[in-house]
């Protein structure tokens, strides 16, 4: 089916959505995920849809493609794409549009590709489906498409399976798939989530470049206002299924009209602001000032790490079996996840550990936490070499209560069968001084107050708590035993920006109040800048650069640090 677009000069918008309302059938009846959404999009225009989770931004785009799952339906409104009433057209009509006139790219690109089919074949499938190629010339055309998304050695990549390609490469394949039939509309749903910062930039640049080249309309769906502002002509902000504001990118940044937009904008980490600036103004003003940075206490540092190494054997079953039978097989070179790093941490200091995935920052933090035994090296905590105590027995060591951790995923880190109170009480029960009954409850409530969790929530189970509340429970548990060192492993990575703002402030205040030291593991330099005194940049298991946060950000010495900094999306205007 071919869609003929009217060829007159007063072009109607390519896509027009009017009063769109989408309902999902649940056991509590219909739930409205999207309510009365209106949008128009002209050829060649780029629209950003920004919102936090649950805002309905993804549902809107799925509805436009009409690939909602069974439970969802359009309750109201119309979608017109190139003159076709997408909402009411027969499935075959819409199917002919999909992939040919409108395409979509997704987050988590590796999962978005058929894992057991050669990527080239997957592109062929689309080409053949839409009669853009015959089986005879499909391969040739598929390779052309691969070339178009700037894939080096496309003939070779044609035969690759998704698992053989990097995340960034997979996203290029997904883009190739989406653009194979030269559609007029591309919907990019969080295309950079899950990718490393440097890759993120490359992918976004490619999308924008191709869109411009082909005069394609683009919808960019993201939670990151900065990203949207940097790449879009117009931005539409959504909250709880409704559009709160639509304006040009410039207007949104210069003069956000809606309170929610303002809140969202403020919460986005960016250069030159403090933690308090992340919070909505009315709250920020009520809070105590950040306080002056105390110079690190002189004398013995709290933690000294000396030449820490973690190796993983690269072992194959065949050779280990052969060894079992006595054959002498050379052990393959082990893989070094952490390659001889050294640093120290003063009492009351907070240190940022920054790097892309696979750089060894998580392995380092696990070793510092004594959940993992290093291959060699020393972890000297208050003068005691903790690496001598094996991780297996460390739980029973008195040092255990001195070092605690806040985990990346607040959902995953809470036992689903425990109430919030029970989770917070767990360390007290295991290592506390025989507190029980009302005293224990009182202590738990005190901790809850400290992290700002209202006490009625204490008796809820994790699935009954929001992300921010779960994060608070995790923090309360970590500080229950008054630790001296807390490792924060990307504690806000799974949270929406507005929640992240609150949690970051909370962490900062707690540190001030309780005099703890932090090691803050993150991939986000902006966040590290606000929270940390010093920063260590890691790459491939080693330290690339180390120094005062402000100094490193202002004048990065290492090439890699510069690259990281330049990859942060910058809104066009400041």
């Amino acid at each position: 089916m071919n869609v003929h677009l009217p060829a007159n000069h007063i072009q109607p918008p390519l896509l027009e959505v009017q009063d769109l309302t989408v309902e999902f059938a649940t056991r509590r009846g219909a739930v409205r995920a999207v309510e009365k959404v209106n949008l128009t999009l002209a050829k060649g225009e780029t629209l950003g849809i920004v919102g936090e989770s649950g805002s309905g931004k993804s549902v809107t785009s799925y509805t436009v493609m009409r690939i909602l799952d069974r439970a969802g339906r359009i309750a109201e409104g119309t979608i017109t794409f190139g003159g076709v009433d997408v909402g009411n057209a027969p499935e075959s009509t819409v199917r002919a549009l999909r992939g040919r006139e409108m395409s979509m790219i997704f987050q988590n690109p590796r999962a978005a590709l058929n894992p057991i089919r050669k990527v080239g074949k997957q592109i062929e499938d689309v080409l053949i489906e839409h009669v853009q190629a015959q089986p005879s010339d499909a391969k040739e055309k598929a390779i052309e498409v691969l070339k178009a998304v700037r894939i080096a050695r496309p003939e070779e990549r044609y035969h690759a399976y998704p698992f053989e390609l990097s995340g960034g490469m997979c996203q290029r394949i997904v883009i190739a798939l989406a653009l194979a039939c030269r559609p007029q509309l591309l919907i990019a749903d969080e295309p950079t989530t899950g990718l490393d910062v440097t890759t993120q930039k490359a992918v976004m640049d490619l999308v924008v470049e191709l869109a411009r080249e082909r005069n394609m309309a683009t919808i960019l769906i993201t939670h990151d206002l900065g990203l949207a502002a940097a790449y879009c002509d117009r931005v539409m902000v959504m909250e709880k299924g409704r559009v709160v504001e639509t304006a040009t990118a410039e207007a949104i940044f210069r003069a956000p009209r809606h309170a929610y937009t303002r809140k969202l904008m403020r919460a986005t980490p960016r250069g030159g602001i403090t933690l308090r600036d992340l919070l909505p103004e009315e709250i920020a003003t009520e809070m105590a000032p950040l306080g002056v940075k105390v110079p690190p206490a002189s004398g013995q540092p709290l933690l000294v790490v000396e030449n820490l190494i973690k190796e993983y054997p690269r072992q194959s079953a065949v050779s280990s079996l052969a060894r079992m039978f006595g054959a002498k097989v050379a052990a393959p070179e082990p893989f070094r996840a952490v390659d001889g790093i050294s640093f120290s941490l003063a009492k009351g200091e907070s240190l940022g550990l920054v790097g892309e995935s696979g750089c060894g920052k998580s392995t380092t933090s696990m070793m510092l936490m004594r959940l993992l035994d290093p291959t060699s090296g020393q972890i000297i905590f208050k003068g005691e070499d903790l690496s001598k105590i094996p991780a297996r027995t460390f739980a029973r060591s008195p040092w255990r209560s001195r070092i605690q951790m806040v985990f990346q995923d607040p959902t995953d880190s809470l036992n689903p069968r425990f109430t919030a109170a029970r989770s917070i009480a767990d360390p007290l029960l295991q290592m506390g001084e025989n507190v029980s009954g009302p005293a224990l409850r009182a202590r738990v409530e005190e901790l809850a107050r400290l992290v700002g969790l209202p006490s009625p929530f204490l008796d809820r189970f994790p699935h009954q708590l929001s992300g921010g509340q779960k994060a608070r429970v995790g923090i309360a548990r970590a500080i229950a035993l008054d630790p001296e060192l807390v490792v924060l492993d990307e504690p806000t990575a799974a949270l929406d920006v507005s929640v992240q703002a609150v949690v970051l402030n909370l962490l900062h205040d707690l540190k001030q109040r309780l005099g703890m030291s932090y090691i803050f593991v993150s991939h986000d330099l902006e966040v590290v800048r606000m929270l940390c005194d010093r920063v260590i940049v890691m790459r491939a298991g080693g330290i690339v650069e180390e120094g005062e946060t402000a100094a490193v950000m202002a004048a990065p010495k290492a090439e890699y640090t510069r690259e990281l900094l330049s990859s942060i999306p910058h809104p066009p205007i400041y």
Partner: protein
Amino acid sequence: MSTATADAAAPSKDGILSHARHIVSENPVTGVSFALFALFLLAAIIGPFIVPYDPLASDTAAALQAPSAAHWFGTDQLGRDIFSRVVVATRLDMIIAIASVALVFLAGGFAGIASGYFGGWTDRIVGRVSDTIMAFPLFVLAMGIVAALGNTVTNIIIATAIINFPLYVRVARAEANVRREAGFVQAARLSGNSEMRILLGHIAPNILPLMMVQVSLTMGYAILNAAGLSFIGLGVRPPTPEWGIMVAEGASFIISGEWWIAFFPGVTLMLAVFCFNLLGDGLRDLVDPQRRT
């Protein structure tokens, strides 16, 4: 897409009961199976007190009678009332099913969790044991155990438990393995929990719901297994009523037209297993977090 809808729903305070109601209303088959299960349970508990005839009393004058108002399911070769025997047999069959499953649930569940959680040698040993059992033709292994130890109810229970061992190990191991590096387990370590405590206090309760599904499914299998053993003469001792034996006894009468002797116990047996299997499906829906909307 599921995230979009899941997050939209407000955190719910209502518990498992309303969820169960929902599952039942969404899938009437599950409701039927719950009702059936209740019926079987009832028969097991009060069955022996309500049956019209003594299940063991022979009455050769009334042998091989077709189903009638006096004998709903007819009578067998010795004139015993099949309805009474079928009802009374419920208790024994339930005991075999429940006891064998309880046994393997504890042993296999623990071995599986330990092997999935600790890995290393524990995993290797448990893995070897369960591989070895799997390499046996299971029904023949059960036969061998019963033949070697003697055909008592206890030995049937033990044999059934042993052949189900690998199934439980597999489920428990996989689940424990997924969770061994989960955040909450790491957190439990940081809280100073010992490994055994993490295993039993943190991991086991989380695996429990899935294991319950397994329990329900293997209950049916346990009954079938006991019936199969009875069929080849290695089951419960006569004249104790047991469904499998009754089918075996009636098998030679089918061709001569006395179909009811094998038919009713066979159908009851089927219904019981059917009920357990559907129950398993229902439980799976109940505990599957993805189905919780």
